[in-house]
């Protein structure tokens, strides 16, 4: 309970802090034109939603200064190109490394010439080559940080269990969650005999998604779980585990549904096969869309405070933004729960044994 309260308090404090920063920027601007402000907010939101090659806490729009640090860029382009993202100067200049020129366009790296020309096709996509980008981006950094935090927390908890059956410290807060995942998610969905094999994955994915969702709510501006590549990777792992643990019964229900006439079996097979792919696809889209939407709504509401530019409107929007951020805290947990729950459900389908035809 205390941890929850602390999280709320932290969110509120950081929330207020982040608004101060933006408010200052706005005052410095002097003559605020409504249209340019709106575009700016929109750009800021769009920028926030995307992954980036540097970690910026906040920017001073007047002086064009960015407060943060740069991250390493790793490209596969005629060998490995490794350089610091500071070379891009936040996308304003062309980065040169070993005689190759790279330019940032919408947070993506394109290979270009010394002048940094980017030509667009009819669909507004650049025609330049996009080298394979294995950079340690903001999201990758957050994944690493979350991973380290999780490892410290849970390895510490395991160590504390070695001393006695009663866990101490942060484990006291985490232990009921672990028991909940075991007793309410894994055992009812997978079955008492087979759940043990899947517990490590379910626990890891739950805490991973939950912690990253929570990090997304801090003004650090990380939107890891709202990134399609992340949710795709997680859904892919669930998909692979499901298919590899599928027993005879599972495949039989897909390709030759028992208990229905033969023509139905033929019709059902492609539908079931499609379902196999749709299930993890839904898993991917659900997490991505929920987190993405939450970020957009929250940031838009914060942006509204500055659009209103008067006491009543701004304070009302502040209350609204506050309420939404509380809901987002819940959504952060809920989405982690749903992802884990559905993964467990799919594993349950794959290992299910039953004799009766239906």
């Amino acid at each position, binding site marked *: 309970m205390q941890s929850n309260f602390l999280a709320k308090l932290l969110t509120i404090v950081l929330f207020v802090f982040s608004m101060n920063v933006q408010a200052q920027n706005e005052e410095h601007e002097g003559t605020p034109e409504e249209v340019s402000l709106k575009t700016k907010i929109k750009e800021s939101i769009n920028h926030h939603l*995307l*992954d980036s090659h540097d970690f910026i806490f906040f920017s001073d729009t007047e002086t064009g200064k960015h407060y943060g640090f740069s991250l390493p860029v*790793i490209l596969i382009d005629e060998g490995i190109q490794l350089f610091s993202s500071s070379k891009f100067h936040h996308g304003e200049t062309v980065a040169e490394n070993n005689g190759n020129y790279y330019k940032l366009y919408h947070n993506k790296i394109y290979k270009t010439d010394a002048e940094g020309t980017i030509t667009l096709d009819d669909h507004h*996509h650049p025609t330049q080559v996009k080298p394979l980008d294995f950079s340690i981006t903001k999201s990758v950094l957050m994944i690493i940080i979350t*991973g380290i935090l999780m490892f410290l927390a849970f390895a510490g908890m395991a160590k504390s269990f070695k001393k006695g059956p009663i866990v101490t410290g942060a484990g006291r807060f985490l232990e009921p969650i672990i028991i909940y995942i075991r007793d309410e998610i894994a055992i009812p969905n997978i079955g008492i005999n087979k759940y*043990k094999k899947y517990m490590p*994955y379910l626990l890891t994915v739950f805490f991973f998604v939950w912690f990253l969702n929570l990090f997304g709510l801090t003004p650090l501006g990380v939107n890891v779980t709202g990134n399609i590549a*992340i949710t795709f*990777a997680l859904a892919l792992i669930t998909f692979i585990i499901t298919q590899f643990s599928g027993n005879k019964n599972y495949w039989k229900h897909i390709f030759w549904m028992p208990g229905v006439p033969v023509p139905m079996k033929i019709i059902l097979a492609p539908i079931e096969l499609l379902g196999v792919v749709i299930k993890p696809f839904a898993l991917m889209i659900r997490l991505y869309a929920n987190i993405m939407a939450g970020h957009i709504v929250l940031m838009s509401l914060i942006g509204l405070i500055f659009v209103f530019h008067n006491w009543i409107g701004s304070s009302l929007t502040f209350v609204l933004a506050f309420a939404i951020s509380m809901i987002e805290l819940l959504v952060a947990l809920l989405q982690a729960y749903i992802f884990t729950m559905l993964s467990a459900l799919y594993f349950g389908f794959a290992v299910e044994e039953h004799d009766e035809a239906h």
Partner: protein
Amino acid sequence: MDKLINDFSFGLFFWQITLFLLLLILLKKFAWKPILNALNEREEGIKNALDAAENAKKEMESLNADNERILKEARAERENLIKEAREIKTKMIADAKEEAKATADDMITQAQEAIVNEKKSAIADLKNQVASLSIEIAEKVVKEELSNKDKQLKLVESMLDDATLN
């Protein structure tokens, strides 16, 4: 869909898969296994302790029942003992009374016998004395009678008369 594909970054996907799998393996080895085992062990321990408590309770109950039974038996035995003792006492008193009575009877009988014997011997003695007295008297009488002849003859005659009469 176009936006989704456009947003998809292979590099991020690669890192996510790699880092996530690494995290999964590390956590599985260093965290989940020990934690889940510890939780299971603890639950087993609690379950066993509860079972043991339940068993102990049952045992206590059966012990109590035993105690109750033993107490009852003891009480019954005591009752029996007391009853028996009472019976013995009554019997002893009755016996003693009877014996006393028998002895008294015996003694009375003996006393009576003794009295009868004494009486008999006394009577015999008296008879003897009376006889000897009679003889003495008879002797004196006879001596007197026989001191003259007439008297002797008279006597013989009377005697003969008696004898004839008989």
